[in-house]
């Protein structure tokens, strides 16, 4: 079926939140309440169990390189965040039930009928994407519209995006398109443009993201980790420590019995 994914070009995002709405509608997600956060136009906050697309708004006190703004030193950064569908997914590798699977489209999907709500994926995700809904008891996240892909349809968010900031397609084609876009942007003066997580080379901790981004500032500004790592990569040291501890425990038990049994009243 080939590798499918999203390329989200943040320089094209106008912050209309059509992706958030389309996602909610198609997937029939419950609402998140109506709160004002005070964070620019972002009243969604972060991705979660019932928020699978989230548009971030950053008001920067400096212009984009190569651009002039009518209001002085200022620029908008907007980014539609989504599950990254990592090549090495923390949630998938942590899932103890096998509820989280990799689909034929190379995306990461949570099977709601298998998930037992252990909540381990929630802390295993280095991007803080997946979450367990308190009242439902199961973990939920973006499915990359698995039900639409099977029908050869474009995911709801990409379909609704009016500026093609969100593009869905074959990963190889998306990468080519993204690299072309970075070159174009740099030519017109936006020298800070780069691709976040396009391949394993640029993000070895995740093996590359199936939904990658074009950013123009440091990842932290968009609430993305600068050097994310799937926790499983560091597991060797942990089990090594357990082996060492096991030796210690066995020595303690055997030693206590050997020394203690000689005791007289």
């Amino acid at each position, binding site marked *: 079926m080939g590798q499918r994914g999203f390329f989200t070009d943040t320089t094209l995002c106008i912050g209309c939140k059509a992706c958030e709405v389309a996602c909610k509608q198609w997937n029939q997600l419950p609402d998140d309440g109506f709160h004002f956060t005070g964070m620019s136009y972002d009243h969604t906050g972060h991705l979660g169990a019932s928020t699978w697309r989230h548009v971030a708004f950053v008001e920067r006190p400096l212009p984009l390189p190569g651009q002039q703004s009518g209001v002085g030193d200022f620029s908008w950064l907007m980014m539609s965040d989504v599950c990254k569908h990592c090549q090495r997914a923390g949630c998938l590798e942590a899932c103890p039930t096998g509820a989280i699977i990799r689909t034929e489209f190379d995306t990461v999907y949570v099977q709601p009928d298998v998930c037992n709500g252990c909540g381990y994926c929630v802390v295993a995700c280095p991007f803080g994407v997946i979450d367990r809904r308190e009242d439902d008891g199961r973990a939920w996240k973006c499915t990359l519209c698995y039900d639409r892909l099977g029908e050869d349809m474009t995911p709801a968010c990409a379909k609704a995006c009016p500026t093609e900031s969100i593009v869905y397609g074959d990963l190889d084609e998306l990468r080519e398109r993204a690299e072309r876009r970075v070159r174009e942007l740099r030519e017109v003066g936006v020298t800070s443009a780069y691709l976040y997580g396009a391949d394993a080379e640029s993000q070895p901790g995740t093996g590359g993201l199936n939904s990658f981004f074009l950013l123009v500032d440091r990842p*932290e500004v968009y609430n993305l*980790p600068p050097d994310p790592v799937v926790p499983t990569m560091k597991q060797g040291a942990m089990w090594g420590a357990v082996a060492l501890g096991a030796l210690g*425990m066995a020595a303690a038990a055997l030693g206590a019995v050997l020394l203690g049994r000689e005791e007289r009243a």
Partner: protein
Amino acid sequence: MKRMEGGTSLLERLERPTDGRNVDPEQGILTGEAAGQVVKELATAHPVPNLLTTIPSRSGPAEEAPSYYGVPVLKAPVWLRTIPLYFYVGGLAGSASMLSAAVELLDGRKLAELERRCRWIGMVGDMVGTALLVHDLGRPARFLNMLRVFRPTSPMNVGAWVLAASSAMTSASVAGMLLGRRGSMLEKLGNGASLAAGVLGLPLAGYPAVLLSNTAVPVWQGTRRTLPLLFMASGVASAGSLLELLPPHSARERSVARRFATFGKVAALAASFAVEREARRSEVVARPLRQGKPGALWKAAQVCTAAGLALSLLPGRRRWRQVASSVLSTAGALAMRYAIYDAGDVSTKDPHATFVPQRQGLGAAEVAGNTVASDGRPLKFPLPVVS
């Protein structure tokens, strides 16, 4: 339900509305991916967010350590407050099983009473631990889904298998002890199960630390080399303390329990300092162990463990002193688990605890050896300003 559009008979075609309201009633059926998501109380599912902690205009590159309005990058653990208690019970049961196996291996006769007691502790501990685990699940009825796959990358899956196997073995060892007559086949099977339970007790005490470290939570991931040692040492101290609290059958038994407990207390105290030291590789990661509620709990755990150790090392054997020492050690072991758990919770709420260590080279760079961050710039913090 009858499809209006799909009808082909003459009657159906005549019945079809012509005023544009020919909507397929199936469109009204909720079939979306998340249509099955249960929603009871919106207010508790999505509380009002906290007030801003950073000024929005400061989130640009002018700041040395930017973040997105101080919003957490990671999700906080969703587990119940009973999970640290499970860690304590698991460590206790695993250590008791190990001690029972050691007695079985070295000296079955002289310490038979101690072995019986350890088998009981191991079995009851495994049962209570399993109950606490099932209670924590979002869908407790699906507990057995944990055992539908074997996934070595998931410490929770490995732990579920270890717990299941350990429960079986400790139960078999108790059954052999109760039902088998001296020298019978049943008793020998029980003794064999006791040895197996001892071996399984080791990972049972250690895997919860791997489960915590194998996450994106900065303070848990940042202490992955020492946290298992702390959990296992503390498990030995917990089991030893419980055995010391119960009335001993003989002087030998008291001596074995005392030595076992003392070893655990010394190791737990040393490991707690090692954990602190490992966390301090990045100041912002170690912060929850020094400040606030988890910091206070952590200090209290260390003080309790140290006091318990000091009391048990004083010359002379007074019963009250032994009881005080065991109670202090148990309190220390419990407080330590809660401190680690709460520190993780606090750690996820601070975006800088994720960002700063990754810029220090403690993210993927530690294992993958990359020298640049995902933005293609050197792993250095703060970054040189590029115009």
